[in-house]
């Protein structure tokens, strides 16, 4: 039944999709004065491709067909896939079409966002060539405890300020694997060689052998990896924070992918999701939980745009005990970037030698701790050579990219000491043992402070565990979910997708997530406590909805340490449609109610309404007036198309319509109808009348009709 309904809607949507390029319209003109570099206005997503979540393979084929696209990649473990769009269909168009038509088995549809590694600031601090590594050096087995002989150790101010030397008495990262989710790294570097497990090229799914140089043309991961885990006491170069931890390379930025709008070569959320789940849960031997999986993931990357595939993958790995460390970004601002915008992850900002925030370090509510992130000395790909032909081997650069691996290394040390700790406990331990800097207590500039390795490792017990909350947003009414043609006791409510779910405390936003198409939003690693829950949906921009289609609901939840709480929220549309007319004869308001056989057009005269009631009155201004009010029990998750019929008019009539939905009021008309004419809501241009695609010269009608939860 739902599918049948979708097909009926499909006709109406066709007009919307055919000519509409929703996000590139030439809007109201003004005197053009600014010019903005292309780089600042480029789309945040890959063109020609969307990501969807699906219930089963058959559904996936239908979903692809619904947008005329082809499945190009799928990830069964998340029931997510990538669909290539046909030429001429934009990403917003396709996402809108799927979310409106809701083909059976669709879990979500979203753009495939482009993300970037956090570009380090090249601060120009170069290493002196008298301390360049020897290419032939082989790593000595690291001495487990004690002072290290690495010649560049004295140049690592970050280790001094984090009090690393004493911390290594307690742990060095033995038996811990740190996943470096980044560009490719130079695994053959003398300070990194011999301490790697099999990694993955996330673009191709091919394995990367230990000690392989997969750095392509990029220095990023090599530098990041060395900070977290370069060998210690091997008489060579630097010491990593966790000198005996192992490294796993997950290459999510690939030279092959570098192109317009994707300067970093991001391989896409789907590939990243597959890769981090592989690295955290399976590993190179193909056997889950066999000891070659990553225990902590370092992510010195991010970008705008909430991606459900990425969110689901991160939930999966964090639920399985893996710590997801993410650099905050180098924008200097308090802002939301992803992944750090998701709940459950550990955001890291950058600090400097005098223990203040580095100017560029991004702030925000997901910031956990700060760590050294300016002029950080670390390993450098051996192919990059100086004027005299010798490799630099080690370089200083700056960025929150350099701060995150300090924390990743710290987590590795803690995992060695507390192998059974949860991600929340590990994060909390670093927070409570951090040296509080800048404003006392927590602040959005430096989090809980700059991490202190010795204080963290000296802890003899773990903090209490965190908690989790699942917010379920459902329609208030049941629809014909079993598709038998009737709405009856066997049917169920429907999860509402793409709704914003915000947890607040005392009015302050604590965490944000969106529901997937099952209507679920999961919040992991929450501090135990009470939260207000705000739910608002759907996304009127992405779905090209009327503003009144956005519903809001509020609730609250309390959750204690080690526990999980469900919050159930209900979306239930209130709708009243008022038609007024002047002129000779009668005009009828006709409502297309969804039913077992598709759209069923009903009017006051037909007396067959399933979901609403008609009333005839006279308006205060003397106009004739007809009102349709939706019943409390109604068919949810559907569009109620409308029509104005002048079938019974004797001469020209002038008609206006007012739609009151969920507290928002929108007016349409007046329309002048000739006797016998019928005007459908898909042609009510008013609210959309400026919605013109200049490239195609088309006037594009919006949905016009109410979308009902």
């Amino acid at each position, binding site marked *: 039944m739902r599918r049948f309904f979708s097909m009926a809607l499909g006709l109406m949507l066709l007009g919307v999709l055919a000519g509409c390029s929703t996000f590139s319209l030439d809007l109201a003109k003004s005197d053009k004065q600014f010019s903005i570099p292309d*780089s600042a206005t480029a789309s945040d997503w890959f063109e020609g491709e969307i990501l969807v979540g699906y219930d089963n393979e058959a559904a996936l084929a239908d979903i692809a067909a619904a947008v005329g696209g082809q499945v190009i990649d799928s990830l069964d473990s998340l029931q997510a896939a990538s669909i290539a769009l046909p030429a001429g269909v934009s990403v917003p168009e396709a996402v809108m079409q799927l979310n409106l038509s809701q083909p059976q088995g669709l879990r979500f549809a979203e753009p495939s966002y482009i993300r970037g590694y956090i570009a380090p600031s090249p601060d120009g*601090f170069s290493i002196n060539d008298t301390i360049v590594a020897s290419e032939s050096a082989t790593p000595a087995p690291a001495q487990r405890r004690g002072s290290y002989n690495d010649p560049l150790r004295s140049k690592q101010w970050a280790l001094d300020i984090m009090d690393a030397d004493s911390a290594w008495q307690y742990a060095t990262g033995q038996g811990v694997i740190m996943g470096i989710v980044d560009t490719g790294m130079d695994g053959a570097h003398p300070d990194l060689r011999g301490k790697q497990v099999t990694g993955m090229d996330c673009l191709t799914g091919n394995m990367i052998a230990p000690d392989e140089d997969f750095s392509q043309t990029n220095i990023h991961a090599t530098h990041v990896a060395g900070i977290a885990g370069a060998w210690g006491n091997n008489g060579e170069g630097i010491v990593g924070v966790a000198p005996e931890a192992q490294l796993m390379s997950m290459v999510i930025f690939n030279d092959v992918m570098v192109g317009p709008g994707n300067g970093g070569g991001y391989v896409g959320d789907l590939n990243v999701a597959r890769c981090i789940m592989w690295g955290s849960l399976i590993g190179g031997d193909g056997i889950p939980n066999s000891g070659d999986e990553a225990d902590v993931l370092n992510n010195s990357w991010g970008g705008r745009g909430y991606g459900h595939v990425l969110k689901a993958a991160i939930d999966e790995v964090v639920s399985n005990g893996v710590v997801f460390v993410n650099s905050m970004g180098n924008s200097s*601002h308090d802002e939301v970037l992803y992944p750090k915008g998701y709940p459950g992850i550990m955001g890291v900002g950058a600090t400097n030698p005098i223990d203040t925030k580095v100017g*560029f370090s991004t702030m925000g509510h997901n910031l956990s701790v700060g760590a050294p992130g300016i002029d950080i000395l670390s390993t450098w790909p051996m192919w990059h050579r100086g004027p005299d032909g010798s490799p*630099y081997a080690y370089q200083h650069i700056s960025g929150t990219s350099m701060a995150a691996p300090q924390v990743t290394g710290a987590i590795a040390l803690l995992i060695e000491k507390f192998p059974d700790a949860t991600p929340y406990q590990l994060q909390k331990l670093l927070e409570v043992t951090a040296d509080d800097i800048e404003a006392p207590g927590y602040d959005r500039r430096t989090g809980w402070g700059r991490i202190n390795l010795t204080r963290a490792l000296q802890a003899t017990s773990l903090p209490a565990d965190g908690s989790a909350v699942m917010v379920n947003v459902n329609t208030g009414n049941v629809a014909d979910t079993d598709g038998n043609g009737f709405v009856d006791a066997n049917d169920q409510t429907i999860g509402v997708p793409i709704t914003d779910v915000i947890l607040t405390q005392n009015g302050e936003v604590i965490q944000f997530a969106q529901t997937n198409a099952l209507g679920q939003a999961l919040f992991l690693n929450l501090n135990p406590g009470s939260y207000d829950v705000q739910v608002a949906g759907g996304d009127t921009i992405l779905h090209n909805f009327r503003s009144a289609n956005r519903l809001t609901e509020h609730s609250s939840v309390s959750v204690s340490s080690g526990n999980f709480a469900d919050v159930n929220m209900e979306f239930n549309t209130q709708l009243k449609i008022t038609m007024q007319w002047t002129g000779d004869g009668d005009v009828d308001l006709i409502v297309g109610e969804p039913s077992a056989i598709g759209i069923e057009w009903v009017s006051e005269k037909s007396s067959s309404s399933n979901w609403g009631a008609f009333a005839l009155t006279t308006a205060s201004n003397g106009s004739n007036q007809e009102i349709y009010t939706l019943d409390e029990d109604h068919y949810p998750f559907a569009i109620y198309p409308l029509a104005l019929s002048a079938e019974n008019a004797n001469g020209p009539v002038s008609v206006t319509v007012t739609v009151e939905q969920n507290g928002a009021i929108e007016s349409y008309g007046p329309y002048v109808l000739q006797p016998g004419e019928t005007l459908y809501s898909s042609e009510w241009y008013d609210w959309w009348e400026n919605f013109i695609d200049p490239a195609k010269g088309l006037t594009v009608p919006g949905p016009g009709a109410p979308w009902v939860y």
Partner: protein
Amino acid sequence: MNVLARVKILLMVGVVLTLSGCTALFASFDSRIEGMVVNAAGGEAIGASHVWVRGLSTGFIATAKTNARGEFSIGVEPDRYEIKLSKSGYASSHVYGVDANSPTHINIIQREAFNPRWSTKPPVVDISGVSEGNSFQGEIPFRVDVEAENPMNLLYVALGKTPGSGFMTNPRQAYTESDTSGDATIDPGTYGVRGETTFEVVAYDMNGNRTHIIRYINIISVSGLILPPLDPKAISVTLGKQIAFFEDPVDPTSNAGIEAAELDTNLYVEVTWSPSSGDVDGYRLYRSLNGVTFTPLASVGPTQLRYVDPGSDIQIGRNVYYRVAAFRGGDESEWSEITTTRPLESFDVLSVSPTDSESGVSRSPVFRWQPTKRVGRTQIYGVVLWDTVLGESSFWITPDPPEFTNQVSWRWNQDGRYSGTPWEVLQSERLYEWQVAYAAAVDNINDPRAVSIAVNRFGIAHPDIPVVPLGIASTDNFTFLTGNN
């Protein structure tokens, strides 16, 4: 003519004027070293820095301390000098070869120590191939090697001027990833130098310790008669805060990125001119702080019609004057017309409403921002709204982003630019971020001669305002949560 006597004029900047009242005090000395110590080209003055000078042949030693404006003045015996600066918490700065055979003025950079616990010993610079008093025709082969206790940071070489960061002092040669230039050459034609000039090297180690070597050399060239350049125009640019461009996708392995990121700069003057007719070897700029007495500033090559003067002695609210001359061989043209600019004050723009973390915000919010200071006659602002979920900047879905002139508030869609689109009102109970992404003040929008730029995060270009090549971040980026109305 004595090479050294002629060239020392290059280093005299306004000495006579600013110090005339003090000369009696130091009458027992025949010469004087005047200077200003700043933390960067165009940067902040460093007060209370110890200044030590030593005559290279006489052994004459004197000391002084900079005042709050970073200035010092020392009476000395005529000689070539080395100058050393020291201050607690700061890196050292060493200048070698300053000519004080007659009163001279020099600007010296002294940086804050990156890490005060690290060595503050200045790098030791060894130059081969270019010795004092050498004459050259065509390209000059040289080699510079540096020894430093800290790893080396940057090594610059230039002719006729003190080299520094690329944006301010191009052209110059930079060696960013090595403590040696290797065997290199430098082309006098690129620098527009001829006759007596200087070969200068600046080296920074990673703690900010600086060594600056000045050698006087002679460039042999042909001579002839030439015409002056036309239409000189000076525009001062004041920046509200340090230039930061960490978001720019720079290739960290490229020299360009490393050089460009190097300095913070707050005030500079951009001088442009039209070329002289006929062949020239280059142009020479002269600057004055009183419009009467001009002193040589720099020389540039024949294809360069723009010079950026980061001069640390340029002051807010005080006119600075420029003239340009063309030269070929030993001949120099008449001076061009005078052009002048009076730099504007710096300012910042703070976001007012919606406030950071505000909730229940109207779906047609009124955005308000406030400059910290009223600067210039015209202020121009650009504001950006981000949807934190979709990642789209709503102002930039249109090719015509709103621009606000002398306006510090805007109700969402008050001009109807989003009417009839899904952006007509904001979504209810949705998280947004907003920021002032562009803020500039100009003295005269129709013919700007002084510009003060508080914010230009994304490299936005305005047709009337010089493009600032780097991003200046906005101070505030506020997150807010809309309500239902």
